[in-house]
């Protein structure tokens, strides 16, 4: 969305609805709500142009808490409803709110298709690796072996990696952030909003009730700098509390190296480029897992491509111009007709 006409000055408060927020105390969703409200306040888009669309799940209650236009859909269909909204009116800034169950279980098909078509929406995937609203069953991102209410002896299926799936579906924008990291989230959401096309943002979200600590190993204060790497365009892939670790390419593999050791200097470290179309490196970056690698956050992939909603309207405008049929009356009288007198 790039509708920046009629700039107005907002604060995050302007995006808060009058409805009481009903998530559990301590749920990661609270922080995400706050990040989204801050982002929207800064984008310079008028409030009435925002449409926030969701499916069903704890996360999908989101629209009720926003003072924008909002639609709480049905389970799994957030991306499809959003496709309708955006294609109907490309002038709206459409934000799709969905969970790991909503987007990747029942809604998996709509997700891969919205990504393939490259509809210009911003899709925030709240990944808590559990079904929150239905009280704790495993989801397609639950780690293998996870014990949940429907896997009392541990799951036997490997999880999706949302970024990998999105890139496999021809995704042009993928970013990752963490619920509690409001600064990073605002940065990433802003980039998502600026990107024209489907921007998928995976948010590592903690469900305090049914999957508490799912990301503790990489988010706890003590270790996060050593276990996360924030990717920013043009910057070398360096991380660590002492910023002494970096990523290099070793054949077809990403390798963690120590700067200063074995003659490695900052210059040897890969520099992030989210804009290359070739998905090879982006795929490796989304696939990095701790402990072998740091987990990548930030905007991992951000490639320009035509959007579906624009293409649909461009085609309509072109045909409209070319066709002699301008209204229903023309159509009714076109082709083979005869007159009875």
């Amino acid at each position, binding site marked *: 969305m790039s509708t920046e006409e009629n700039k107005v000055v907002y604060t995050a408060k302007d995006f808060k*609805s009058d*409805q009481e927020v009903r998530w559990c105390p301590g749920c990661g969703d609270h922080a995400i709500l706050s990040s989204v409200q801050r982002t929207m306040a800064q984008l310079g888009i*008028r*409030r*009435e*142009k925002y*449409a926030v*669309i969701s499916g*069903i799940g704890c996360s999908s209650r989101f*629209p*009720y808490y*926003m*003072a*924008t*236009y*909002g*639609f*709480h*859909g*049905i389970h799994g*269909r957030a991306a*499809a*409803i*959003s*496709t*309708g*909204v*955006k*294609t*109907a*009116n490309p*002038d*709206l800034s459409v934000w799709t709110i969905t969970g790991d169950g909503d987007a990747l279980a029942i809604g998996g*098909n*709509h997700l891969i*298709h919205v990504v393939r078509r490259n509809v210009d929406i911003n899709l925030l995937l709240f990944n808590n690796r559990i079904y929150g609203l239905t009280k704790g069953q495993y989801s397609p991102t639950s780690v293998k072996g996870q014990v949940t209410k429907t896997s009392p002896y541990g799951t036997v299926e490997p999880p999706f990696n949302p970024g990998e799936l999105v890139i496999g579906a021809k995704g042009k924008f993928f970013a990752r952030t963490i619920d509690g990291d409001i600064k990073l989230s605002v940065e990433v959401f802003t980039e998502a909003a600026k990107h024209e096309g489907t921007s998928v943002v995976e948010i590592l979200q903690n469900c305090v009730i049914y999957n508490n600590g799912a990301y503790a190993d990489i988010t706890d204060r003590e270790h996060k700098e050593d276990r996360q790497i924030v990717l920013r365009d043009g910057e070398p892939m360096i991380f660590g509390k002492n910023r002494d670790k970096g990523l290099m390419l070793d054949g077809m593999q990403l390798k963690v190296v120590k700067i200063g050791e074995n003659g490695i200097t900052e210059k040897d470290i890969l520099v992030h480029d989210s804009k290359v179309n070739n998905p090879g490196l982006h795929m490796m970056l989304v696939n990095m897992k701790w402990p072998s690698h740091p987990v990548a956050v930030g905007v991992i992939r951000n490639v320009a491509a035509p959007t579906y909603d624009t293409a*649909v309207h461009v*085609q*309509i405008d072109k*045909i*409209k111009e*070319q*066709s002699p*049929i*301008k*209204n*229903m*009356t023309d*159509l*009714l*009288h076109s*082709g*083979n*007709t*005869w*007159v*009875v*007198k």
Partner: protein
Amino acid sequence: MTKKRELIELDDVVIRFSGDSGDGMQLTGTLFSNTAALLGNDIATFPDYPAEIRAPQGTVGGVSGFQVHIGHSDIRTPGDLADVLVAMNPAALKANARWLKPGATIIYDRDNFTPKNIQKAGYKEDPIAEDRLQDFNIIPAPITSLTKEALKDMGLDMKTVLRSKNMFALGMIYWLFNRPLKYTEEFFQQKFKRKPEVVEANEKVLKAGYYYAETIEALHSTYVVKPAKIEKGVYRNINGNTATAWGLIAAAERAGLQLFVGSYPITPATGILEELALRKDLGVITVQAEDEIAGITTSIGASFAGLMAATTTSGPGLALKSEALGLAVITELPLVVVDVQRGGPSTGLPTKTEQSDLMQVLWGRNGESPVAVVAASTPANCFYYAFEAGRLALEHMTPVVLMTDGFLANGTEPFRVPDIEKMPEIKPPIVPEGTEDYMPYKRDPGTLVRGWAIPGTPGLEHRIGGLEKDENTGNVSYDPANHEKMTHIRAEKVAKIVEDIPEQKIEGEQEGDLLLVGWGSTYGHLVSAMEELKAEGKKVGLAHFNYINPLPANTDEVLGKFKKILVCELNLGQFANYLRMNYPKYEYHKLNKIQGLPFTVVEIKDEAKKLLEE
């Protein structure tokens, strides 16, 4: 039809083109009906083809047929039995022998009646004898060989040559019914603009057939069917799917809204989507979604965004849309859902017609989830009921299901082009910018319709969704009393549409011994049966329903005017059950057929007479 060699005037005639799926019978039939229509005949057509793209050649299962009924007075059905059959091979004869009038004319391609083909069709030896057709007017024409002959100098490959056989048959029929070739020739010239050799070949064969018919002894007479005495106006031939598409576009135009259609292809509904996809010139947005669920949910999104939204499908697709349809019910967004019914259950008989989705349409959703339902009854009036579905949806803020079926979808009839400006203007309750105290679920006290606030309008920001909502504010509410109240409001809102639809009319006798009752596509057969019975002096009327939910206000009264009621439908009695549920005091006799085929007029008359005599 008699056997004199002269020009004979007929009131109406039924012709059936029939051959292998690859023989181009659909095109042949369409070209013939277009010519007839352009000459001012009233017509009705009925294509009937197998589910396979190319079913096995030469077998009965692979036969593709196209029946056309032309006449100079009201033609209501494609006809029960044919006066003329064109059979391109033995299987075509086999499949159609029992659908012929006594003494009908049969033109067949004798080149194709080889022993092998005869056997493939399931005949033992002599097809004519086996089907007891000796007394019929049999014309064995060497269609294949004469087609080859006609094109022998053009240097075309054999596939192309054989593909134009159907034009030979068409030429013969044109001669037989005294029709000019020019409309068909114009069609070739336009269609194959860039392939002059194809135009030439088709024209050559068409003429060869025409002259062959003129020459041979076998054709004892030619016929004319005078133009129909029909209402003045501009006409065009139209099938139900195109009419549906156009009706939706017309509704959008009269509402001043852009049309959005999210859909997924499915037989026999695909034609609507295909026609709409062409209509980008009228601003129609079509999204061919990844599945039916995305079809309806993209449309719901578009409706939320303020467009006129529709989604089109057939029975299995409607089943998939059920959950989302409930979302449109509770969010009270306007949405037209078109269900082009086909034979069920499950995949069933996908290319055949049936009326067995009624219960699904009325109740196939969780919870108390009322939708308005209308049904078209002829190919051309699909236009008006699609328009009407759009009007009701937009003005009453509700999903409306429009029911048609395979028979209407593919059947054609002349369509008197309406004056769009005279069609009702559609006024959706759009909430204007600057409205004070806007509440998403505040209603018009008369109609119970809520306002429609379009995203993008400053000051009307609001949230809707699938959870139960508080009266007026629309906030989520778990209050028990509110839920009961909202459930009644949703039901009443749809029920109140009764005030916005016409009363049910009775055709034929206004009271008397027997009321025929029908709905949807059976109209043509029912009205013909009623008229014939009336002509025989029976006190019979017809109440044919287009408004299914709500039923017209005077339904009870209408049903009460006759001694007996016969509900005729192409299912096991769903509408009869629905009427019984609503008006239990009447006895409903039932005539049901579930063969993937329309009624014949005779079937209806027979059943009616039986009842009258009881």
